[in-house]
Structures are given as C-alpha cells and as structure tokens.
C-alpha cells in the first residue's frame, strides 16, 4: 500500500450548535491528486481550514506524515511542508509578481537577524539564491512577462497562477488548493490542469477543493464527496460519476430518478 501523507481521522467541527463537519474520515497517499467536492456549504473550505491549522477541530485528528497536527499554528504547519492556496485572496496585491514569490520563499531564507542586517557573506549568498529561485519560479509558472507588474493589477487567472507560484515557493510536500480554477475560462482551466499535473510529477501530493466538475473528473486520481458535513462517497472519477448518492446531492432526489430512467433507457 502507498505511503499515506495526510489522514483525516473522524474530524468533526461544530460552530456552537451548527455542525459544519460531522464525521470526516479519509486519507491522501503520496503522489496522488485527490479532489474534495460537494455542494455549496458542504464543509469543504472548513475542512481545509482544519487541515492547515486555521481552525481547531471539535473532535478527531489530522495527521500529516504520521504526526498529529493538533495544537500547531498555521505557520508551523506550513513549516512542515503542508501548504495551501486560497480561493479569493491569493496574492500580495501591492507587490510585484516577483516580490510575491520572494515573500513566498520565506521558509528558505531563514537567517539570523545580525546576518541579515550586517549583510554577512552567508546573507548575501542566501539572498542571491532566493532571487534566482524566485526568477526561476516566475518563469516556470509562465508569468515572466509580468514579473515586474503589481500582482493586484493582474487578471484573475494570472493572480491564481501567482498564488500557485507563491505556494510552490514555500516548498510544499503537499499542496492544498482551494477552488484554483473558479472564474477561469475553459482554455485557462485546461492550461491549469496541465500545471497541476506538472506539480504532481515534481513530487508534490495534491488535494483540491473544486466546483468545476469536468476539471475534477479529468485531473483527479480519487474523489471524496462531502455533503452536509459528512462523506457520502469516495473513489475514482468513474465510480463517482455514476454514484446515485452523489447525483442526488448535486441535483436533488428527482434528478436521481431522471438519471436512473436515462440509464434504463440507454
């Protein structure tokens, strides 16, 4: 069996009396692309916030590479190589694309304060290496033409790419992406899917939250379906596509009958 990178063990999240996630239990293996899908309000973003330490689960545990993440702060979790991207606020808007990536490289540039202020040789070398790495990442993501533009002035799709470059700069072992292609057109989405595969091939495990079903179906190795805070289905894309519980969750009870009828007639 493949090595498990992330496992969510019986996680529940309650906001007062509201149950956002009732019992979530799944895992992601090394090198996989797994998608977490579900209708609006199903608890997907909440799940992300729990995994990355922005929220503490009411019950259950999140384990990353075998270690319990309980009580760890978001930046400590990021330090372990579990990096996330955001749905909306994905960039530092008042900095250039290049500087955005430089900020993302924070984890690599750790120096002592005195070294940084006095500009000792080690600090210079580290600064140089970071600048080279930033330039390389900007090129890799395909934004070199916009490297010196303010990230806030970029198109939505480009900002998404900057968000990914930023996340990659933080050297993820595992990347959590929150609706990375929402708002992108078909061709942008297509390019993005190739990018996701490229990231996976470079050795990064990926967990996606996404609404774009064709994209999810084409890119995922495995899909986990969440509805009303619980997992209703899990499996490869082809199984999910035909799963009656999933169709019901997305389209409602009557739609399930329609789909059944269509299946019968087919």
């Amino acid at each position: 069996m493949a090595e498990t990178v992330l496992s969510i063990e019986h996680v529940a999240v309650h906001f007062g009396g509201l149950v956002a996630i009732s019992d979530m239990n799944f895992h992601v293996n090394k090198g996989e692309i797994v998608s977490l899908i579900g209708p609006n309000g199903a608890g997907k973003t909440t799940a992300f916030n729990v995994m990355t330490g922005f929220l503490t689960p009411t019950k259950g545990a999140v384990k990353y590479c075998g270690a319990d993440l309980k009580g760890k702060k978001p930046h400590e979790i990021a330090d372990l190589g579990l990096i996330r991207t955001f749905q909306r606020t994905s960039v530092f808007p008042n900095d250039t694309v290049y500087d955005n990536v430089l900020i993302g490289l924070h984890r690599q540039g750790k120096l002592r304060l005195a070294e940084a202020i006095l500009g000792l040789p080690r600090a210079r070398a580290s600064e140089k290496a970071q600048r080279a790495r930033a330039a390389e990442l900007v090129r890799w993501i395909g934004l070199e033409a916009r490297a010196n533009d303010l990230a806030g002035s970029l198109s939505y799709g480009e900002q998404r790419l900057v968000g990914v470059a930023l996340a990659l700069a933080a050297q993820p072992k595992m990347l959590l992406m929150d609706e990375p292609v929402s708002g992108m057109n078909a061709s942008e989405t297509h390019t993005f899917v190739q990018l996701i595969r490229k990231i996976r091939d470079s050795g990064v495990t990926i967990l996606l939250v996404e609404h774009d079903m064709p994209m999810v179906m084409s890119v995922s190795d495995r899909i986990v379906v969440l509805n009303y805070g619980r997992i209703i289905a899990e499996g490869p894309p082809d199984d999910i596509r035909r799963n009656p519980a999933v169709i019901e969750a997305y389209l409602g009870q009557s739609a399930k009958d329609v789909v059944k009828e269509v299946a019968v007639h087919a």
Partner: protein
Amino acid sequence: MKQIVTLLCLAFFVSVPMWLTDPYLLNALITTGIFIIGAMSLNLLLGFTGQLSLGHIAFFGIGAYVSALTSLGFDVPIHGDFHIVHVPWPPIVGFFLAIVISGFCGYLVGRLSFSVRGAYFVIVTISFAEVVRLVALNWVELTQGPLALTNIPSITIGLPGLGYLVLKTKFHNYYLVLAVAAISYFLISRLVHSHYGRAMRGLMENETLAVAVGINVTKTLTLAAVISAGIAGAAGSLYAHYIRIIDPDVFAFISTVTMVIMVVSGGKGSLAGPVVGGVIFGLLPVFLRPIMPPEAQWITYGVVLIVILFVMPRGIVPSLAAKLGLARAGGTRRASIAVSERTVEEHA
C-alpha cells in the same frame, strides 16, 4: 540612483554646521533630528508592518529616563531601610542601556498586544505610554517627578590615545545626532530589504496568505516592535543628554502625534519619508515664528499638513518617486493608485 541621492543628502547634512553659524537654527536642527530618529522608528512599525503605535513616545521617554538615571545615579528606598543605590555611570553606557531597556519594553508591549492586534495594539500602546508617564510623575524618589531630572551630563566619548571628548557644544551634538540617525536609517534599510522585511510586508498586505507560506506573525511583529522601540530609546537618550533636563512632559501625547505627522506626510513605508516629513514639520514652526503670531503659526501648520495630504495622499516621497518614475519606493504603493496613475500618464 537611489543610493546616489541618499549619499548626496547625507553629504549635505554633514556640511550644514560648516556654513550654518546661527546657534538657534542649529539647535532647531538637532531637536528636529532627534525627533526624526523617533519618526524613523515609528515608520518601521507603521509603514512596514501596518501597526499604529500611538504610544510611541513612551519608548522615547523611557530611553531618556534610563539614560539620565544611569548617568546621574539614584538612591531609592524600597522597603524600610532597604535602598537601591546606583552610582553614576558614564553617559555612553546610559545610551546603550536606554536602547536595551526600551527594546525590552517594545518586546513586552508586542508580546502582550500582537496576539490580538489591530485596534487592540493602538489601545495597548496608548495605555502603556500613559502608565509610564504616571510612573515618571509619581515615583518621585527615582524620577524627581515634576521637579525634573536636572544637570544630566553630556555624552562623553573615549578616544583611544587622545583622552575624552565631551559632546557638549551644538556642533558636537549635531554630528552625534546625525551619526545615530544615519546608523538607524541604514539598519532599518537593511532590515526591510531582508527576508524579515519581506515577511513584514507580507503580513501587512495579506496576513492569512503570509501565515500560509510559513511566516510567524507574532515573532515578526515583535521583532519590528523591539527594533523600533530600541531606536526610539536611542533618540530619547540623545534628547536627555542634549537638553540636559527631563521631566514627565517628555511623555506628552502630542509628541507621538508629531512623529505620526512626520511619517504620514513624508510617506509611510518609504525609508526617506520620515526624514523629509520630519525636516518639514520639525523646522516649519521655526520659520513661522518670526513672521506670524503664535495662533496663526498653528493654523498654518495645520493647513500645510492638509495641503500635503490632499495633494500627495500617499506622502511626499512615494508621490514624488512615482512622478519622477524612480524605482519603487519601499514597495508599499497602493496597486490601484499606481495603476490609475500609470493610465493617466499613458493618456497624457
């Protein structure tokens, strides 16, 4: 380009006492210089981390008192016959102690308030300054309260082989202040251009994202607060040894406001901003005094401030830099404004 401008400015400031003989103006320049150092330290917090410290004068005042008391000595009864007695130490030791103790106070305030931040930080800093002022006012055995600490000795520098140099004249003090200001400028510049500075900028712009790439919020902000408070403490120490008398009025809220005005008008988040804003608002009262009555002076002061902020809302330095097309000043220009300005230029 930017470095050449910086060096030219420095050369100009170095040359000033050689041609400026009026002691009154030189005095104004020295006190303004001391406040510019304070404003630079405030800019590190306000301009590079986005945290407004409205009690910044507390660190300045603590520096002043620590330095003064170190060089004057004290004898404070604690309980019954138990006294804490401190024999006077050289003022230069007081200067460094002022930096360390102010920095430590910055650490405490940062630790206490940065776990919540925002408006909370503003309130904590105001309260802190007020508490420190009340201590200075009421702990008469230590601080002489409203009677003030007097006869504070001037800073003395030991020159190897040449004996001692007492920095007593305005000429000496001008260069002392200039040296400390230049070192502070250099230090802040190095800090904000290092990965520490990038972490601060990241936190200011998008804290959630910054945290997600592994930036430790509390640590980064506390670091900025410590360095900022330390530099303010250094400024306070210079003030105490130059003016040679301090009372609890050094903690006046209006002094913090002056520093905020210097930073905001000059351009927060730009290194040269507090210097430019400081020179303008530090020397403006000096130039207005001979030409108009006191009431009119303050009205003019206010009008100048309003006009500057109206014409150049981001502050003088960033606005001029954008107009002259200089390299990005400090990296804090607002995206929307920068974009709209660029469009205007293209249309023109």
